[in-house]
């Protein structure tokens, strides 16, 4: 399925979670996410936990943690 992270289209398996989406996007970003340096936000600007599910067509953004 196609999901968008930082405006990049990522092709990922159905049933994937946020952490796996970020891993598919970039291993470096994944490590920063795991260490708390980055956070994931949905298209409404809400913070999303890394264990949240991901669905076709969803849009997410990585941002530096505050």
């Amino acid at each position, binding site marked *: 399925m196609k999901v968008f992270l930082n405006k990049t289209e990522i092709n990922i398996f159905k*049933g*994937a979670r946020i952490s796996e989406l970020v891993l598919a996007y970039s291993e470096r970003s994944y490590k920063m996410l795991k260490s708390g340096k980055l956070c994931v936000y949905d298209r409404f600007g809400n913070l999303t936990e890394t*264990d949240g599910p991901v669905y076709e067509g969803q849009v997410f953004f990585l941002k530096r943690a505050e």
Partner: protein
Amino acid sequence: MTKAHYKFYLQHTFMKLKAFFLFAVVFALFSLGNHTVAQKHRKTTEIIIMHTNDMHSKIDNFGKLAYLADSLRKMHKYVFLVAAGDNFTGNPIVDMYPDMGYPMIDLMNMLKFDVTAIGNHEFDMGQELQNKRREQANFPYISCNIDASKAIVKQPEPYVILKAGKIKIPFLAIIQLGENGLPDSHPSRLEGITFTDGLTKASEYVWLKEKYGMLIGLTHLGVELDEPLAKAYPQFDVIIGGHSHTTMTKPMMVNGVMIVQTGSGLKNVGITTLQVTKGKITDRKYELVPLAGIKGTKPEVQAVIDKYNSNEEMSRVVAYAERAFENEEELGCMMTDAITARMKIDFAFQNGGGIRIPTLPQGNIMLKDIFRLDPFGNQVVTFKMTYDEIKSLICNAYNREKSLDMVPSGMTYTVTVNSEGLCSDVEMKDLSGKLLDESKTYTVGVNSYISASYKFNHTDPGTTNYNTTAQTLLDYLAEVKKVNYAGVKRVFEKK
């Protein structure tokens, strides 16, 4: 005026005055009474709803939640505690408890939860166990778009009415469905249950707003569906959401509906405060409270958490190793055999980095050994793959570290390494020693880490059955009871 006339005049005037005085008193009393009634009608009732969602068996913060709930219950007359689904799956202490899930409901009962929505992970334990947990619970499980009339699981009520004095507050629950029309759980656990699209089903319950003057959604839809729900049904005053693990520090306002959600894993609790005047909600406030910031804990709840966390259950024997596992390859072969056996597929692969212990001694294999071996909670993902695509997986995996990586089930393989130390070819054979048919398409299982992180060719995007690799291994070991992988070798390289 004569004396008689004067006397009559005085008496008459006095009577009129008396009548007037009586009238004035009655009028005053009546007005006062009316004013009191008017005041009563104008009186505002404050209602506190504490809510959490997607706790996923995480119990460590229950003591703090209890402390906070008790504090609020002492200060406020009407306090409710509700959950928006997915109370299970995510902590072996709860999920692998001999009576699966028991600790979670035990703790939710101690905290006097008022209601929970049914989430997709409520089905993970199977329908019979869900019934058992629901019998254990002192609070109802609700969902309006589940028809379990032909299933083992008990039919849930669509909504519940919680009472705050004379005020009645309906909570309507809705569960999310995937593209296949089912919630995200293994289809085998949903047999006999019919699900209806929640956004459509909600239309059958908007009468609750008319009847009770207010309507709270307790949804397990995810914020992407809470938003259109709010747009379609402004009758909702508040949507307390779950499923998407969204942490809202402030509420989302959509079409006049307040949408809230608190993340996952009981890291936070939401406190939604309603002001109700003349039977209608006149004000709504939401606050996200991180439980890490709560310094107090309720001792009796903490004692129960500590008892569960003492890990006695983790020493439960799950199988017997007839011979010791001497290396990661032998362990990896057991992990992948579990996948091919349980999922009845052609091949499976395990990355070396995901085999987290180097050896396992002969003797009893305990539950904790499995979670030491495979602690990540990765899901099993299956792909339909061609011969060349499987080669690309093995070859690209080799090239990551210039060493053998993928441990297989269902085949052996030999990597040919070129002068630069990179994989140039892979020869694959089935377990009888025959070369694999290059024209066939195979079903291959890997973990979700490989699916997301490894670059390999695959037209099929892959799909998960929502089982973790650890759970798959446990199910396999429960079936075979004894294992012996001494000397098993399935990966080779040649230069």
